[in-house]
């Protein structure tokens, strides 16, 4: 037969922080930067414009799966980019390296950096001042095509040369 139980209290204390909302970021507002990229491109009829560089020279090169070596086509595009940059010294460039979604996040960041670097090296070899070029990798964070097929992956494995007018120069 059960008897009653007597509660004796031995007290140990441990403090814990019950975190409440710190009021930092309560809402899922859209803080997006927007595109706004259409301004300042100029007309593609103007051979010194960013629009011309994008359309006539070609602002991007594509890569094979897990590769960062420029293809012959890619090499020709970068040579044309170098030529244009030499003739238009008022622009600086950021080369963005990207990967497709087939890969782990960290590896793809490193792979995108290799791709951007391959473009940068050739531009510098061709005489573009290295202080006009920076590289950044987005890994698989910024796909332009969203299907999960090779047709999309091929467009996403890219290095894009993004120009801005060098206002300080």
């Amino acid at each position: 037969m059960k008897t009653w139980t007597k509660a004796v209290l031995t007290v140990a204390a441990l403090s814990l922080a019950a975190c409440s909302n710190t009021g930092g970021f309560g809402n899922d507002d859209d803080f997006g930067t927007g595109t706004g990229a259409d301004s300042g491109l100029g007309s593609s009829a103007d051979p010194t414009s960013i629009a011309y560089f994008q359309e006539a020279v070609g602002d991007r090169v594509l890569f094979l799966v897990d590769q960062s070596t420029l293809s012959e086509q890619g090499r020709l595009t970068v040579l044309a980019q170098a030529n244009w940059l030499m003739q238009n010294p008022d622009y600086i460039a950021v080369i963005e390296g990207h990967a497709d979604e087939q890969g782990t996040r960290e590896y793809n960041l490193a792979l995108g950096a290799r791709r951007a670097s391959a473009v940068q090296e050739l531009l510098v070899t061709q005489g573009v001042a290295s202080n006009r070029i920076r590289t950044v990798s987005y890994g698989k964070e910024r796909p332009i095509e969203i299907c999960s097929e090779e047709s999309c992956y091929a467009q996403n494995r890219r290095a894009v040369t993004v120009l801005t007018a060098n206002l300080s120069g």
Partner: protein
Amino acid sequence: MRLFATLVIGILTVGHFAHPVAAQGQPLRIEITDGVIEPMPYAVPDFVAETPGSNQVAKDISRVIAADLNGTGLFREIPAKAHISSITNFGSPVQFADWKAVNAQALITGGVSVSGNQLEVKFRVYDVFAGTELGNGLRFKGTTDGWRRMAHKVADAVYARITGEGGYFDSRVVYVAETGPKNNRKKRLAVMDYDGANLQYLTDSSSIVLAPRFSPTGDRVLYTSYETGFPQVYVLDVGSVRRKVLSNESGTMSFAPRFSPDGKSVVMSVTEGGNTDLYKMDIASGKRQRLTSTPSIETAPSYSPDGSKIVFESDRSGTQQLYVMSASGGEATRISFGKGRYGTPVWSPRGDLIAFTKQNKGRFHIGVMRTDGSDERLLTASFLDEGPTWSPNGRVIMFTRETRGAGGAASLYSVDVSGRNLKPVKINGGGSDPAWSPLQ
């Protein structure tokens, strides 16, 4: 603002004459490592409200305890409608026959009282078939807004008593909350209780953020942000949400950070001139030490729990594979030799296993292997699984699963280290890159 709750634990000692002597049969026990197990049936009748107005919180606490235990896949609750007896007084003797009759092997009883904003929860666990109490009763005191944590503490104690392993319910997860389509995805850091409750955002979504990692004490988070336009490692204080950049050298990128077990330094990848190597940085001084120096990609480093070694991935052999080296750098030993590619290795907090992402034949897997690479076991398979993180007790792995196609979205999943109990983690919207905190 930060609220503090003080949790006081007391042991409810049972008078010596209350111990029944005749414990017979098998002890109440779940062996987590067993291959296939039948979940243990148990009952957790609503905790007794011992003060006026505490009915709801008593009920809520009982439900959180049940959700914790049921969620493990190791326990099966006997629902209240099947009970033939109720607990109306925490101190009264338990009618074991009534619980035996509904086949509850374990019984959890509790009492809840509220005074102002002070909450007190006490509980006992019984081995119904032996007719004995399992361990001593415990009492937690805190503030009412910390009621979920008290429920998790009770569930952790029950789990520990029945499995002999530490629990993991009183823990948090930091992850990347995702919204928007694949080609315009917004990412922000978020932290939540391990079960998805108490969600709090730590950053806005104005810049890409990646792969947050908790400090060994859970008070700080390392992550990678594109705030400057270039990926750099930041450290953020979870309480104040204040952040500072750790590594910001012009012309370099830094990412894939992880704390050393003493919390004083960070190991991470730094990319310079297209080449990615591992570095260790002392947080206080900012002093950087290079750990690898090869033309290959070295990334995703993770310390052994004793801090003596680092496991990481490298493509120095031609494809992504896993390597272990001394925490001070130098020679590395390859440990992955199966078919396919291996990445994102994470050392278990128990030190016995390494979890990883494996890619083979167009599929992704989360797997585990011993620290020497032996006994590889794949736990999942899908279009894209990646980025494992360990529960504080080293028994459960949470990871990112991304679905295929134009409408593809990322969400969080968890799976037992045994490969059982694969399930989505309840979050608000999409999510990726989870990192589990230590037990709080």
